[in-house]
């Protein structure tokens, strides 16, 4: 009887932990594969909105498309990529620190414009 109860408890514990672990793994999987499409039109970010919001610990791929060639710089994490009409560019961010990080553009077209604030990457704490 005692042995039965013990086994039963073990199974119950395993039964409740396993799905939780599986769901957690699935969520982690989901998190690891997260892609955020960021579209620039007329030198403004039109999608996903005024700020890109992720959480600390996320690994996200920011996939940039722009209707004209541009250099993009994520401050803080200090990542730089070049994007253009025929050249979508990916920026992989391992969000180890929370904060609100500026993304600026450099060298638009031929007008010789300097820094322009495009959007912010907001990493919220978990």
């Amino acid at each position, binding site marked *: 009887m005692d042995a039965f109860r013990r086994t039963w408890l073990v199974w119950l514990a395993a039964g409740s932990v396993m799905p939780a672990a599986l769901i957690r793994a699935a969520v982690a999987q989901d998190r690891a594969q997260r892609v955020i499409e960021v579209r620039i039109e007329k030198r403004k970010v039109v999608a996903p909105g005024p700020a890109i919001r992720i959480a600390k610990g996320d690994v996200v791929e920011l996939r940039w498309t722009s209707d004209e060639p541009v250099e993009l710089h994520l401050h803080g994490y200090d990542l730089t990529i070049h994007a253009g009409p025929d050249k979508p560019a990916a920026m992989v961010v391992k969000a180890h620190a929370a*904060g*609100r990080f500026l993304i600026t553009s450099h060298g638009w077209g031929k*007008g010789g414009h300097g820094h322009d604030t495009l959007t912010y990457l907001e990493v919220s704490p978990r």
Partner: protein
Amino acid sequence: MRKVRRPGLALPAAALMTVLGAAPVQAHAFGPRYDLPLPLELYLVGAGCAVALSFAIMAVFFHAPPARTDRPRIDLLRFRPVQVLFHPAAIAVVRSISVGLFLLVLAAGLFGTQDMLKNLAPTFVWIIWWVGLAYVAALGGNLWSACNPWSIVFAGLERSIRKFGPRTRLDFGLAYPSWLGVWPAVALFGLFAWFELISEAAKLPAPLATAILVYSGLTWLGMIAFGRNVWLAHGEAFSLVFGVLGRFAPIGAPERDSPDGPPRRWHLRPYAAGLVVESPCRLSMTAFVLLMLSTVTFDGFKETPLWAGLLGWVALRQWLQPLLLGLHDLGFDYRAVLGTVTLAVFPILFLAVYLGFAWLAKRASGSARPLAEISGLFVFSLAPIAIAYHLAHYLSYLLLAGQLVVPLVSDPFGIGWNLFRTAGYGIDIGIVGAEFVWHFAVVAIVVGHVLAIGVAHFVALRLFGTAAAALRSQYPFLVLMVAYTMASLWILSQPIVASPSLIALRAPSDTVFLAPFEFREFCLDLAAQDEIRYDFRSDQPVEFNIHYHEDMKIQFPVQLSGTTVHADKFVADGDRLYCLMWTNQGLGTSSLTYRLMRP
């Protein structure tokens, strides 16, 4: 683009403007700022705690008999290790380090690289000295009085000149006019605030070092005229600033028999106890404290989306366009001008509101004491709110941007040195968690608010004698303090944004995008009878003009409104700089394609 400058246009800050006005305009704050705005729930918790604690304090403490505010206190000089700090050798070391750093910053600013992040001067002055020393002064004690390089250098010269005879003096010992109060410090701190918060040149090494030299000259002149200690007490703005912060601190100023004598007592006391003043401070000191508070608030306010929106609204006003255009073409950025005006209005507004509430407190308590006395006694009670806000606002900035100093100590001039093997250090953005910063901010704001009420409570009990009159006097101040605390919390809950950009066009043909209130211009020199052809198309209606400046007036040979497509030619009627300007009048972003041709 050529900037037209007219010598006849002088601002009060003309001396600084000529040095600093030529700086390029950038929309970035100095050093990195990655703060997340305070989340709504923490904002509400902070606000709720502040209001609830206000009433709790009113209900409980105001019925208690007046207590001595400077108790408990401990004389630190009883401890032998503390006495070592006042050993001549220790003082000499502190003074040498201070003067050494002062000279190093000046040298780096004047002779080092002009890249602001690779030169020690901007980081050291703005992050380590201005923000960092404020933390030390408010949380520990007023360190500035021990390491003020202007005072140290002058005192050193005084000592060396005394060798020539006991009567030889470095200063003229003029009698300081009593009516002048601390107004020189008010004026100098006002100029400093403008330099810090408005001028883009403050971040640039050489202009920064030049400004320090100018201020050093003024300080030493003041010391030569009136004597070192007189000037430190009335004219040296930073001694007064750190002095106010030091009143909040738990470590008081060492008590001495003479200003330069050995310390007799050095007290450790509760936070904010030093803000409970025995005698009312003068109007100039009241103005100085309120100037400090207003610049702290303005500093945060100018980074909120509300301020950015206000700038945009102003830029869109048709009736302001000639003025903005004029300022722009004279080389002034309208954002800087508007910031300057607001910076000037803020302290006046603070003073008016504060005096209004002091008057209400006088009425409520039925006191016969003059308003000047009441306002001079309670003004320090607002300081904890501003100090708490300042600490909350700058915590992550100090911890993140402060790291910039690590590589810079190895290479202060930015010329490739690596003295301490730290030149390659990169900023660790994960050094402090956002949640920690948020909780620190809310706790600091609530504690600051409670301390402010506590200070006002002690002052009121001492001033009005009876608990009932004291209680009545506190209702107006309570309203003021709750409002001030809410404003601080509100700023912390706002995302930090840069103000909208205004960029001159450089290419004779291009496609540019204009936000709803934006205007752009292309300027070129033409001789009389020169002809240009131009055309443009826009998907939003734009206002278009060709303008030039004639003395103080702006002439508009061409002016069109609500245009989307236009092509024409233009013949110059004189030798001068003409500017073609487009302002987006639509509600959406305008894509503007323009071409300019000379036959």
